[in-house]
């Protein structure tokens, strides 16, 4: 907290004030960056090894997507439909278990790789060759808040840094005018169960927490819209700065005060950079069509807006971008858990699939076209899967014992499947992996050894993968 620059260094860095940008500071930082490969605010001096990816887009499907209805075809379910499961059932959250329920969605081989994807995601079939589908994911927790915390931070309770915070902490921000970890929302989206703590910096420095950005509101970030015209602000800040410089001298060049002064310059610039980011008026009609921005389905249009902004955030160097699904209110899928179809699975998952399918496929294709996909790692997952047997008559309860996730871009080997679950899709049986392995892999692609990105807190060195995690080498190119 009290580490200081030497006074000589401080005097070299005097800012040029608000009439111009703090050029000297920026040049200095740019020079630093070239030399060591990472932005000046990164915790790591440089990456542990050659990175493949520079950005992560985290498509979180809050509520839990049924894998046997989407990415994990299980033909045996048709044969056993309506019959009791032939194996012992583990406890489910609602204890209202029915018989085996075949998937109402049809699976089809897609792409050159021939990976089967269900009719829930027809557009994703067109980009399947970019995907590495992991069908043997597991999680130890079976309830939403715990599952969400666990998927985000590696711990089932609040208080720990989210993956986005770790990435921003370790690798810093390439764009100083935007946060390193951005959580996109739009329409009526809300944080998943667990709340904004899911995006927390935990014990890491606070600037790494997720900043919520409303993709379709004029006030995209809280307090981003100036209350006063630019000239008024400038004059105010110039007036304040004169006092600040004196105060800084009185305080013997204290580094935290210097940083606080620079902070105002960043905020001032953000007032322009954030609206610029959100202004999609320059995007072509073709882009609108591709993403589905003008869909009649309000939730799909809202999600498409997030996907488009995700691409723009990548273009502007943001490190970690998280997207938020919107509820359609079907089954038990509420605002904080849209995919949670304990009932009415076919209709609910159909509607949710419709919401995200085209926008995400368009995002992948768009990034590929613009040559950005190789440096952008996309992660798609919910907090757990769903049971192959029904809940009630037409829903599925939570299933943590085996579910599907996929990764794309960022040096992942497209068109691969890492399997598998048992014939019913109930338990993962081959290459069982967990959330720690997922993030170990993501960090690896970012050039980070997950065992070496640590933070000392409460007497020990914490990390995103705690004391676990293996990189899933087979799905990497």
């Amino acid at each position, binding site marked *: 907290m*009290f580490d*200081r620059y030497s006074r000589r260094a401080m005097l070299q860095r005097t800012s040029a004030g608000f009439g111009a940008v703090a050029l000297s500071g920026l040049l200095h930082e740019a020079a630093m960056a070239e030399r060591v490969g990472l932005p000046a605010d990164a915790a790591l001096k440089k990456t542990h090894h050659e990175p493949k990816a520079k950005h992560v887009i985290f498509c979180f499907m809050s509520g839990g997507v049924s894998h046997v209805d989407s990415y994990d075809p299980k033909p045996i379910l048709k044969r056993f439909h309506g019959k009791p499961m032939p194996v012992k059932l583990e406890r489910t959250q609602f204890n209202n278990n029915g018989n085996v329920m075949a998937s109402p969605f049809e699976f089809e081989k897609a792409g050159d790789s021939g990976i089967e994807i269900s009719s829930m995601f027809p557009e994703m079939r067109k980009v399947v060759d970019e995907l590495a589908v992991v069908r043997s994911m597991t999680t130890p927790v079976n309830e939403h808040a715990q599952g969400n915390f666990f998927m985000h931070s590696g711990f089932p309770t609040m208080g720990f840094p989210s993956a986005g915070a770790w990435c921003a902490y370790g690798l810093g921000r390439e764009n100083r005018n935007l946060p390193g970890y951005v959580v996109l929302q739009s329409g009526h989206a809300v944080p998943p169960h667990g709340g904004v703590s899911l995006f927390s910096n935990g014990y890491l420095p606070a600037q790494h927490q997720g900043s919520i950005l409303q993709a379709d509101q004029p006030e995209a970030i809280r307090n981003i819209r100036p209350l006063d015209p630019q000239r008024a602000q400038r004059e105010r800040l110039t007036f304040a700065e004169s006092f600040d410089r004196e105060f800084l001298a009185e305080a013997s060049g204290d580094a935290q005060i210097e940083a606080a002064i620079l902070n105002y310059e960043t905020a001032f610039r953000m007032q322009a950079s954030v609206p610029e980011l959100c202004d999609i008026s320059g995007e072509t009609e073709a882009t609108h069509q591709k993403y589905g921005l003008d869909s009649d389905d309000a939730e799909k249009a809202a999600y498409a807006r997030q996907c488009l902004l995700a691409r723009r955030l990548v273009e502007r160097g943001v490190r970690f971008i998280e997207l938020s699904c919107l509820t359609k209110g079907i089954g038990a899928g509420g605002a904080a858990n849209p995919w949670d179809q304990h009932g009415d699975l076919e209709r609910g998952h159909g509607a949710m699939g419709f919401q995200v399918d085209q926008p995400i496929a368009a995002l992948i294709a768009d990034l590929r076209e613009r040559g950005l996909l190789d440096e952008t790692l996309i992660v798609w997952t919910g907090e757990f899967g769903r049971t192959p047997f029904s809940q009630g008559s037409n829903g599925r309860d939570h299933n943590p014992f085996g579910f599907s996730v996929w990764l794309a871009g960022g040096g992942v080997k497209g068109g691969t499947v890492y399997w598998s679950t048992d014939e019913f899709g109930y338990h993962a049986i081959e290459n069982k992996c967990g959330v720690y392995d997922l993030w170990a892999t993501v960090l690896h692609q970012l050039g980070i050894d997950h065992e070496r990105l640590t933070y000392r807190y409460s007497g020990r060195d914490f990390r995103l993968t705690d004391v676990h995690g293996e990189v899933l080498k087979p799905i990497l190119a």
Partner: protein
Amino acid sequence: MLTGIYPAGVYSHVLSTKHGARLTSRDISLGEDLELWVRVIGDGGATVRYVVQDYPRNGTVYPVADLSGDWKWQRYDLAYWSGDDVHIELTTAADAPLLVKNQPRSWFGLREAIVRRKDQPAPVEFSEYLAPLFDAATKRQPKSVAELAALYGDVIQAAIAAWQDDSASDEQALLLDACLRQGLLPNQTTTLPTAAPLVGEYRQLEEAIPVPTRVPGLDESVGRNQPLFERGNHKHPGDPVPRRFLEVIDSAPYATEQSGRLELADDLLRPDNPLTRRVLVNRVWHHLFGQGIVSTPDNFGRLGDVPSHPELLDWLALRFEADGWSLRKLIRLIVTSGTWQRSSRASEQSQELDPENRLLSHANVRRLEAEAIRDVMLTVSGRLEHQTGGTPVDGNAPQRSVYVRVRRNSLDPFLRAFDFPEPSATVGRRDVTNVPAQSLTMLNDEQVSGYATAWAQRVLQLPVDGEAGAAQRQRIQDVFLSAFGREASDGEVERSLQYVAATRARIEEQQRDVAVLERSVAACREQIEALKSPVRKRLLDALKKDGDKAVGFVPEPIGRWEFAGNAEDVAGGAHGELRGGAKLVDGALVVSGGGHVVTKPITKTVREKTLEAWVQLDNLDQRAGGVITIQTPDGVFFDSIVFAERDPRQWLAGSNNFARTQPFNGPREEEAAGQPVHVAIVYQADGMVIGYRNGKPYGKPYKSNGPYEFKAGQAVVSFGVRHLPAVGNRLLSGKIMRAQLYDRALSAEEVAASSGASSDFVPDSRVMAELTADELETIARLNLDIGAVEAELKHLGSVPDEINDVALWSELARAIFTFKEFIYVR
């Protein structure tokens, strides 16, 4: 008198139903396929359940049953929880661990509890209370009604005698209870004169029993050693750990049957335990100096940093003990020391030799904590309201920050921006970060802006001596004193006053700029109008001469208001009544400043419908006013043509709670302030809602779950208000030339025809069609000019109309909020 006579069991209300009680069993380890049966009775909100993993809530697999006045067998299937331990729990209403009901009187009783395998027949319910009668009857069979009656009498008397004797069997008790309920036994004070005074005394005493206020806490019952969870994972329990102090210091288990917390508390506070006091005084030191003697206040010893001055730490800890653990004395001791009073100016030497300032040769520069920053703003603005205690408040309440509600995953955003920690773990040493959110808050937060204005008002109201200049200087001194705790130097006073003056100059200049730009826009508009109006007049005259030529095509409304000198409905009978200052001027209804019209009830039921109006607005920036609305008379259900409720400059089909509302996403309205426009909304029977402007589709139609049916006699139409009652932002500012209501959904052609057929109105498109190519080019050029000027105006931003002292000094206050000195202490 008696509420019941009970068989053997455990009861909570023997003396009074006001008494709180809780009955729990020991833990039962569950094998496979077990069930629980409890035979229970109770009332007033008392409950019975089994408890697994100490979970206090109810849920699908955590059933909780309310108790009712009759004995019943309650069954619980325990198969789901096999492998876990459960215990049985009965509580009175206000004593449940979490699901508390604030009912002052409740009670429970338990006769039997059985855990057994599932596949067995249910316990048999039989009329136990008849058993004594049958027993007696086997010995002397009654042969007549009289004998039966005698039998009853004898049996009951025997039961009473046994009851008096405390030897009644369960059956006898139940028999007596049944008799009580049937009224066969005297149970009133009037019929029991001997008992009455005793009962009276009991009642007095019972009345006086206070209903306790419960507060959540831990109850001492049976202590249990818990297993160590490996890596904190409850699914990997290790060996049980005895309840005791820190093993490394004293590994002897506490000799207690209870939880051991009392023993732990005693150990923490014993005179020969230095640890607690060291931690405490270190925290106070950290608070006062910005860094503790141990710089990791949450971790001493191996997991933390070494103390910079261990002897000082011990000395303070001992002194603290000697002073009776008084925090005030400790604080006074520290802040009256020379060390604490040093300035924050660091010498060259100290910067070279002691950059961390562990030797405290000078004061550390510290940033105020989030709470203090908020409190300072409340104080300088004069908004702070002192209170002691009370319920937690919202972030924008005027109480001190310690009273702001802490909801751990929904923290107050202002406090959070300034590093208020997430309260999931202890944070003895807060982060001091620099995040843009802090600067953005100080620059743009509405609440902060409000504090600035309040501060300015307070400063300007201060009594001052002397004339303008001297008075201003005094005010600046007050500002510096309350913000920074020091006087302003002469230079600072001058610069601040210059800033105020410069602000005035800037605003004046901007006002002049705005005026010039606005004049130039007006001039362009005048030029455009000069080209259009002769054409418009010519067309209008032609229309009037020809009458309703396009009549055949135009559909018949069920309500038509032409506002030609009155607000009558010339098609139906829903005549309008002018309210709130609405006026009729030149064949139009003028609504502004609250004026509106409400009609009499409609005489036809309307389901699918069309709303149509010709309207000109006073300005395009107004929000949420309604042009024409059909609604229930209380305004609770309505459909309306609304301007800019959700999105600015957008026509919207308003409805109650947006039930049938979605944006049309049509083009922004740019013309309706200069000329009338025709707007129509069609509500189809299939729920589709379609908007039209000047006869052409407006934006995209959408599907609603309407249409809403407004019944004849139970709906009214209003003009100029989004819905009744006519308050707030529901009022329109403009004029309505004509309005029509249809009881069916018009087609696109019908709307187009209707838009062209009004004799007060010529659509702009027709006017433009009659202009020459040169005129059109001129208009296009003028529109481009207008666009450029409006962009400039936008760039200038909002400039106040009026300059007053409050506005200027608020600006100074806003600036001071951004000073580093405002939030850093040196």
